[in-house]
């Protein structure tokens, strides 16, 4: 069974992401300390919250170093919402310095008609990354955020979404995966994307389209 470290740094909805991953067959461990990351296959970094306070909490728990070290050792990283943004170097929100695993910054969505960007919006997969296997262009996913990643290297962008301006709604580079939307809150399509992420972590091909766990979920 795949072992996932669900990073608990004091804010955010851990219940629904943990529940969704368990439903898909993963062994999910809530982790607060660096030593708890030993031997896990992947780190799942959720996030509701602001960058500055989030980084401050990660620093307080020693996770600002332990997370990048685990990734260097070969663990996968799955970032959700703020967890995607943390992959990059710095944020214009609070001027926070982030984990810096990928080059680039985090900034407000350009030309947004309204912020925060709250609600269901379409995913437009870029290329053919396995994270988005089975996801048709225009598939709605649930977003709740104002800031987005602006990668230096656009090659890591695997899906885009338009809210006024166009932004990276999913990124993938080596063993690092990030989604700006909430797959655990995006119905059956969201669960499919989580199942795809688990398949990548386990070194399998994309999730079976008929996997019963999410076939029954609206």
């Amino acid at each position, binding site marked *: 069974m795949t072992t996932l470290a669900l990073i608990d740094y004091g804010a955010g909805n851990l219940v629904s992401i943990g529940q969704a991953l368990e439903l898909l067959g993963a062994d999910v461990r809530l982790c607060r300390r660096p030593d708890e990351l030993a031997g896990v296959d992947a780190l799942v970094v959720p996030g509701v919250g602001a960058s500055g306070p989030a980084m401050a909490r990660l620093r307080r728990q020693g996770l600002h170093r332990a997370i990048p070290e685990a990734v260097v050792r070969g663990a996968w990283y799955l970032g959700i919402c703020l967890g995607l943004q943390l992959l990059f170097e710095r944020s214009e929100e609070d001027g926070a310095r982030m984990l810096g695993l990928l080059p680039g910054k985090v900034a407000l969505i350009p030309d947004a008609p*309204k912020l925060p960007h709250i609600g269901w919006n379409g995913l437009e997969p870029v290329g053919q990354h396995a994270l988005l296997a089975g996801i048709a262009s225009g598939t709605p996913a649930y977003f709740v955020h104002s800031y987005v990643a602006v990668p230096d290297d656009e090659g890591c962008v695997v899906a885009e979404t338009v809210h006024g301006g166009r932004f990276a709604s999913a990124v993938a580079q080596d063993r690092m995966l990030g989604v700006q939307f909430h797959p655990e809150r995006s119905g059956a399509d969201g669960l499919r994307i989580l199942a795809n992420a688990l398949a990548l972590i386990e070194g399998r091909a994309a999730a079976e389209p008929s996997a019963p766990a999410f076939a029954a979920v609206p």
Partner: protein
Amino acid sequence: MLLRRVIPCLDVANGRVVKGTRFVDLVDEGDPPELAARYAAAGADELVFLDITAAAQGRATLLDVVERAARRVFIPLTVGGGVRSASDMKSVLRAGADKVAVNTAAVQDPTLIRRCARRFGRQCVVVSIDARVMPDGSGWEVVVRGGRDSTGLDAVAWAQAAVELGAGELLLTSIDRDGTRQGFDLSLLRAVTSVVDVPVIASGGAGSPEDMAAAIVEGGADAVLAASIFHRDIHSIAAVKAALAAAGVPVRLIAAA
């Protein structure tokens, strides 16, 4: 393109879903997680739980309800009612809510909005405003404590202030229309949506799919919320979405079950 949301609201008292007219005459309508799962399957885009148990002893019950619902549905949950502090907000988020609504406590201490936005990000801070037409018809005033107390505060001015303090979304309820199924107060909606730049959820008065379309097209709302028409199967979520799509409103369509 950002889709417009259809949101069933579950008023929760002592762990059960209830609905009354103008916050009184409450009738038991079911188990919250059960109803949540039913609405998610029917195509709801989000769910709002409002705890209308006034007394403090109901808090633990609410957190349990939120946690059970969060484990059963894979659509967003917004939870409000009785949230008085940043630490209350933290408990509700940790129980599984995606967004938290503050109402009375924010009117009493507006800095609560700023503190919650700084700590959790403004995107999960919803300010819930209950508004009632002023006796002289000159506008709307904010009422609190579940519609029981007048504040004399101008609802449109309060909406603007709440956004400046860090509200990421407004849940705007017309107390005059709540539970009446006579349609949303479109003038109130327009007055607020024309002066704020955050999403506004229209609430209070939904009686038909056409009312929902009017709230979005004429009122400028980003989402429409209703309780009794869904709880009593007067209209289905699918029917509301079909009417919205027919009116040219972009919605998330779910294949018929």
